[in-house]
Every structure is written in structure tokens, then in C-alpha cells.
């Protein structure tokens, strides 16, 4: 029996772009791009099984070995710190993790800084390095309204174009780290499916060269 390569793709546009790169490396599965509610797609001929998962869950699937490889944002990798190989920076889905606040915000170092975020670990690591005392308020969405309602002083969130921030009268004060999509692999799978995985990395490198 041929061993299948299990690939976790992040649902959405990024996932589709990434699939095209995998297909170019010889792991095509045309059925995947058809309109349907199916989540798992298999192509025995090319020996690959794709599944669509929530982008923030890709790292978990890969770390636990349900997927051999996957594509996850650097934000997720920093937040959950999964024990995986980070093989390639796809330079797709580029954005940055940033501290944003209302434009009239003044950081008063005498006070504990209230930080609203979905990324508690990234935020606390960042402020620990700066030696700043903070109070993390973990939210799951609509982070932007936290400072407007006085729930927090600042927010730590992903900023792509900054439009959402501007529309809510917020602006970026500091950039914590640039973010982009990364190809990750399960450490054990990498040992036993190294040829297939290396072929994909090689193809990604080539596609990146072509785009330059």
C-alpha cells in the first residue's frame, strides 16, 4: 500500500493558493477546488489526502500527526508554540502583529497596562521582554472595540491593511513581529515521508524564485 501524505490546508483563499503550489509539486487533487461541503479529499494516484481545517487549528493537526504537513500563520506558531518543523516561509498572507490604540493614547508607565488580545502568549512575551506590567484580557473577536469601550488601554492583534483599525479610530503604535504563512511538518512524519515532503519544499522554493 502506498503511504498517503496527509496535508492540512487552512480554509479560505490562502489555502487555495497553497494547494496550487502542492499540485505543482505533483500532489494534485482537482476535486478539491470544486464547490462542495466536503472537508476531506483524496487522490490515490498522487498519494495525497487534503483536508480543510480552521486556520488556527492547522498547527494542532500537524503537531499531533493527524496531518504530516500543513500551512499555518506565524502568529499561530508563536501563540501555540507547537513542536513541529517550520520548513519554509511562503511569504503569503503577509501581515504583522502589532500594538494598536486610540490615536490620543498615552502610555502611562505608572499604571498596569490593560491589553486586549486573542494572542495572550505573544502579548505577554512581548511585554515581559520590555519589563512592562500588564493585565491581559483574552477576547475571541472584535478586539478593536475593547479600547473604545474602556475595556482595555491597547490591543495586540494582526494588522493587514489597517483599514479596520482606522475605521475604529485606532492606530498602530508598535509592530511586534511580521507575520506570514509557513509550511510546517510533523517531526516524526518528516522522518518517514521525507522524500515526499522534500519534494514539496523544493517546489515551494522554486515557485518563490519564479515570483521574484
Amino acid at each position, binding site marked *: 500500500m502506498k503511504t498517503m501524505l496527509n496535508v492540512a490546508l487552512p480554509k479560505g483563499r490562502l489555502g487555495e493558493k497553497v494547494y496550487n503550489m502542492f499540485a505543482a509539486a505533483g500532489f494534485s487533487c482537482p476535486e478539491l477546488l470544486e464547490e462542495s461541503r466536503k472537508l476531506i479529499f483524496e487522490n490515490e494516484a498522487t498519494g495525497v489526502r487534503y483536508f480543510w481545517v480552521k486556520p488556527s487549528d492547522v498547527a494542532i493537526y500537524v*503537531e*499531533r*500527526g*493527524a496531518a504530516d504537513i500543513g500551512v499555518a500563520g506565524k502568529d499561530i506558531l508563536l501563540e501555540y508554540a507547537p*513542536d*513541529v*518543523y*517550520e*520548513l*519554509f*516561509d511562503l511569504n503569503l498572507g503577509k501581515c504583522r502583529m502589532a500594538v494598536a490604540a486610540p490615536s490620543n493614547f498615552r502610555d502611562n508607565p505608572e499604571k498596569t497596562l490593560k491589553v486586549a488580545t486573542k494572542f495572550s502568549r505573544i502579548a505577554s512575551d512581548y511585554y515581559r521582554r520590555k519589563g512592562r506590567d500588564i493585565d491581559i484580557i483574552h477576547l475571541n473577536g472584535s478586539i478593536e472595540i475593547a479600547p473604545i469601550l474602556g475595556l482595555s488601554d491597547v490591543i495586540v492583534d494582526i494588522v493587514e491593511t489597517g483599514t479596520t483599525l482606522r475605521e475604529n479610530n485606532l492606530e498602530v503604535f508598535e509592530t511586534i513581529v511580521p507575520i506570514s504563512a509557513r509550511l510546517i511538518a*510533523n*517531526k*516524526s*512524519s518528516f*522522518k*518517514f515521508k*521525507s522524500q515526499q515532503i522534500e519534494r514539496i519544499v523544493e517546489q515551494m522554493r522554486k515557485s518563490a524564485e519564479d515570483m521574484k
Partner: protein
Amino acid sequence: MILNDKSLKSDERAIFALRSLYDKYGYSQYKMSKFEEYDLYVRNKDFLISPSVITFTDTDGRLMALKPDVTLSIIKNCHDIEGAVQKMYYNENVYRPGGSGTFREIMQVGLECIGDIDGYSVLEVVLLAAKSLESISEEWVLDISHLGVVSEIIGRLELSDGDVRKVLKCVSEKNVHGIGEICGDSDAAKALRTLVSTYGEPKKVIETLRTLSVSECCIKELSEIAEEIASRGLSGNVRIDFSVTDDIKYYNGIVFRGFINGVSQSVLSGGRYDNLLARMGKSFGAIGFAVYLDRLEELSSNEEKYDVDTLILYDEGENAGNVSRAVSRIAETGASVSAMRKIPEKFRYKKLLKLSGSEVTQLENNA
């Protein structure tokens, strides 16, 4: 007693295989108490896989811990004899947080070689690590690295302590682009990137190492191991991979990780830890490894899909002797069997038989 191999779970089978392997090579079993003074762990917190330890106060007021690790306890009791080593293995339960963050009891088997360590001791422990994996599964890989090589090349970069930590993390992730971001494009950075992207067949990797002008002593240590591996026909399984890193506060020299196909995390981890001994005020060396048997649970076989091989149904009022004889007949063939008057809900069996009087008829066969 006849031991039925089928009734052993994969971790239990591994324990038997590993113990007999280590016995054969002159390692003696080290038995110890489940408790240890908490103080031992406080001083070496980073050596533990997780800093969380279950503690309690003993009747005499001392703060005790349920062992999260065995190596520290073994070292504590070791003495130095020049030219000699103490060879020990253990098979103990340790207590530390599992995947979901709550504490778990984990069965761990490990081996330590402590004392005047030389090339032979290192080679023997590496080969025993390989044989340990071989005894668990046919599809295994042992990745070997040399921390001397990694720290030498990172040393050339002249980074701050914080950046060294970040770079080591990148090395362990095979994160070549991350190394580029931190270290730039200097020759030393290029050497580190080459080091991280070179892995696989030991002899080939050593050839690349020579181009990076790494100290001869590290290359020699790796080559000796590589040659022995090749002569034993293990080059396909034992590889050099510098992404195996460990805390350099404790480890030095050869370090390794073992993987088994079908288990998502490494199942074996070990290396040379002279630095830990030095921190504990000992002047000798040590090398050892641990096998994480709890991770072998992922290797479950198909047999576990059934509660029992054969289920015998009988009617109320059936002669007990008849049922017992029918059960014994099947049990003697080596299959598992159960007799009941009704099929319990969600009960899974391969074969379903019906007993009436002394006659047995087959109703279903799902095998």
C-alpha cells in the same frame, strides 16, 4: 507460565524487550522510591521536560515530590571511579503534565551510563538506543546530533544570549529562513544554514561538515559512530540531523532522538550530559536516554477493535457445564471468548456462536 504475546499491549511488550536487551549488555536495574526531595528539582528545573511537579509535605516537614524524572535521582547517588562506568537502567513511573496539561502517570524506561565515559561508552549507548527502537518497531529512525558542532557554529555568530536562544529554536525547527532573519548573511550564518539543511545518511553529512571547518574532535566522534553504523547496515535508520537540540546548560556532545512510524512525537530521547553533572558538583561524565512508553499507545493494532474474538450465546436454563466446556474449547485455541445470554449493547466480536445443548452453530462471522 505461558506468556501470550497477544495479551500484551504495545508498551508492555516494549518493556519486556527493552529490559532483556539492557540486561544482556550488562546494565543492572535500578529500583527506587517514588518520592524525592523537591529541592533536587528546584535546582535543575530546566532539565525537566515540564517544570510542574506534584509536591507534598512529608510527616517530618520536608517538602517532597512525586518523581517527574529518574535521571537526577540516579546521578545524585553516583560516585566516581577512574576508568570505570556504572551502567544502569530503570523502569519507573514518573509524574508530569501530559498533553492536556493535567498530571499523568507515565511509564518510562531509561538507561544511564555514568562515570569515566570514553568513545566506547558513547557508541554502546547510541547502539543500544538504536536496538531499543528496533525492538519496538520495524520502521524506526534514530537522529543523532553533536551539540559541540552546533554551539561552535553559533559561537562564531557572536550573538546576544537572547538571540542564541532564538537561533537554537530555529535550529530545532529546521527553520532556515528564521536563521536568516536573526543572523543575516555572514559566512557564519551561511554555515549554520548549511548545517541545518544537511541531514540524513551519516557519511554524507560528515563530508559536508568538513567543508564548514568544524573542530576535528567533533567530526572524529561523529565519524566513529557513523562507521560503526554503516558496518552494521543501519545507515538507512540512523541519521545525522542537527535539528536535535537540547539545553546546552545540561547537555554536551552527542545527543539523539528516536522516532517510530505511526507515533507523532519522538519516543526516545537522550544524549551526553556532563554539564548537568558538573552543575551537581560531580567531576565525571554521563550519557543515557529515556524511552517514552506512553507515546506508544498511538501504535494500537486492529485487534483492539473487538471486545472479544468469539461471543457464545446461550439460552436461559442451559447446563452450566455445557457452556463452560464450549468456552474452554475455544479459549484453548488461543482466541478470546465470552459466553452470555444476551449481546450487550455496542459489544463487538469477530464471531458469534449459538450454543444449545452441546451443539454449537455459527450465526455471524465478521473476521
